[in-house]
């Protein structure tokens, strides 16, 4: 589904990623874990077109999308729920969700049943239904995170990138977010997940990669990584 080959990317002329390769097979959940500054978010941004890779290739469904603008990558069915949520604060919850489906209105993706999907998203995230007329900026942090995830789902995407869905949330909401990710996994949604809470991320993933200083240090099936002492060290970000 998604294949990353020898990806180099960064900001200005400084590369953060020094050649990483991995793939996310269809209907599976893959997580990237690693300490702050390891390059997790940069990887996500380079995949979705928010930044241009300096070298390497990104393939979506076998097609080369390296260096495409974000809007073109989105129209090919890759939804990105970015770091910091990036919801549209001065628009209503419903408008945010409809914008998630924008390419379906413009004919760049098959329209399907947008209203039905809107209902379904609100079923998955009942808090959003209660607040659908409210401005998104008035939601709590947890609700905003749910809105960002629901908005990504509205694309009817082939694949979703979730960047730090638990960031800044109270522990009870973190649990809720992981419950929803597990639920989406049950439904066969293909996801690439970036998380600080490595243990929780691995528990909802099929496969995991550990990023260290812009390189993949360890990878393997999620259960195997969970029991790996070297990985435990990497979560904590202290090297060993």
């Amino acid at each position: 589904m998604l294949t990353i080959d020898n990806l180099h990317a960064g900001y200005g002329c400084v590369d953060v990623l020094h050649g990483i390769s991995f793939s996310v097979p269809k209907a599976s959940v893959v997580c990237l874990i690693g300490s702050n500054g390891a390059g997790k978010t940069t990887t996500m941004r380079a995949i979705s077109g928010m930044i241009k890779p300096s070298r390497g290739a990104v393939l979506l469904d076998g097609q080369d999308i390296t260096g495409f603008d974000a809007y073109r990558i989105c129209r090919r069915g890759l939804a990105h729920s970015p770091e910091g949520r990036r919801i549209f604060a001065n628009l209503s919850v419903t408008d945010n969700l409809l914008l998630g489906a924008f390419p379906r209105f413009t004919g760049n993706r098959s329209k399907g049943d947008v209203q039905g999907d809107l209902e379904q998203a609100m079923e998955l995230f009942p808090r959003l239904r209660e607040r659908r007329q409210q401005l998104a900026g008035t939601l709590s942090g947890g609700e905003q995170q749910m809105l960002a995830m629901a908005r990504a789902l509205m694309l009817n995407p082939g694949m979703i990138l979730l960047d730090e869905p638990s960031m800044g949330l109270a522990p009870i909401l973190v649990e809720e977010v992981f419950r929803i990710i597990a639920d989406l996994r049950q439904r066969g949604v293909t996801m690439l997940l970036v998380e600080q809470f490595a243990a929780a991320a691995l528990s909802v993933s099929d496969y995991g990669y550990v990023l260290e200083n812009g390189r993949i240090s360890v990878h393997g099936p999620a259960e195997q990584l969970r029991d790996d002492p070297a990985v435990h060290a990497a979560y904590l970000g202290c090297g060993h």
Partner: protein
Amino acid sequence: MDMLLQILFSGIALGMIYAVIAFGYQLTFATSGTLNFGQGEALAIGALIGLSVVDRIGNYWLTIPVVLLAGAIYGIGVERLGVRPALKAKSEGWIMATIALGIIMKNIAENIWGRDDLKFPSPVSEAPLHLFGASVLPMEIIVIVGALALMLAVELFNRKSIYGKAIAATAADREAAGLMGINTGQVITFSYALSCAAAAFAGILIAPLTLTGASMGAALGLKAFAVAIIGGLTSGLGVIIGGLILGLAETFTGFYLSTGYKDVPGLVLLLLVLAFKPAGLFGKTAIKKV
């Protein structure tokens, strides 16, 4: 009393013209953080093209779509030539570029239509109507209704259609809008087209009340900029209030004091607003959450 009503009407009509041009400033400022300082020239081009078309086909109403189209094309040109390269380079070059394109446009217009002011035939009777005891020009009513209708139509489009929401999304967070599959470059081009089309429309609205010429837009564009600042560059309806304040201040000063001083109150107000409420009377002060 009758005189007062009459001045009131003229002031409102003038204010509405300012509001439409200022509305155009807001449209592009929202999506791109840039303005077309050649809005006045877009207005003059609209009026002059309108005049030529009226001469050909003899029907004022049929010129409206032609003028809107001409304004939109001018806007697309300004965005492509003057604004996009500056946005790419993250420079403030768009300020000089839009002024320069305005001057070029004005010179071209002078070569085509001449330097003299021309008379734009009024589509309606030039005999004043008697409304509540005041004599009001029918064209003034058309100006007020036309200006409000244009702004209302754009606001409805922005609020109700998915494309309007895409504009709002681009205005709020361009990068996140791109992640929604919105081609934000195209949205910015579209906002320029709409902005200049609005100015061109203002041109044919006001032309029958004044004289038409290549330099008719310069003062209007500048004062509308003051209106946009007074009303707030980020507040949709602020420009209507701002336009009314300036339009009324001008006509009242012109009548009761002297036409020589008519620009003073509006510009004093501009200075006061900039000093005490820089986001405009109705603008939201940007609060950045970190």
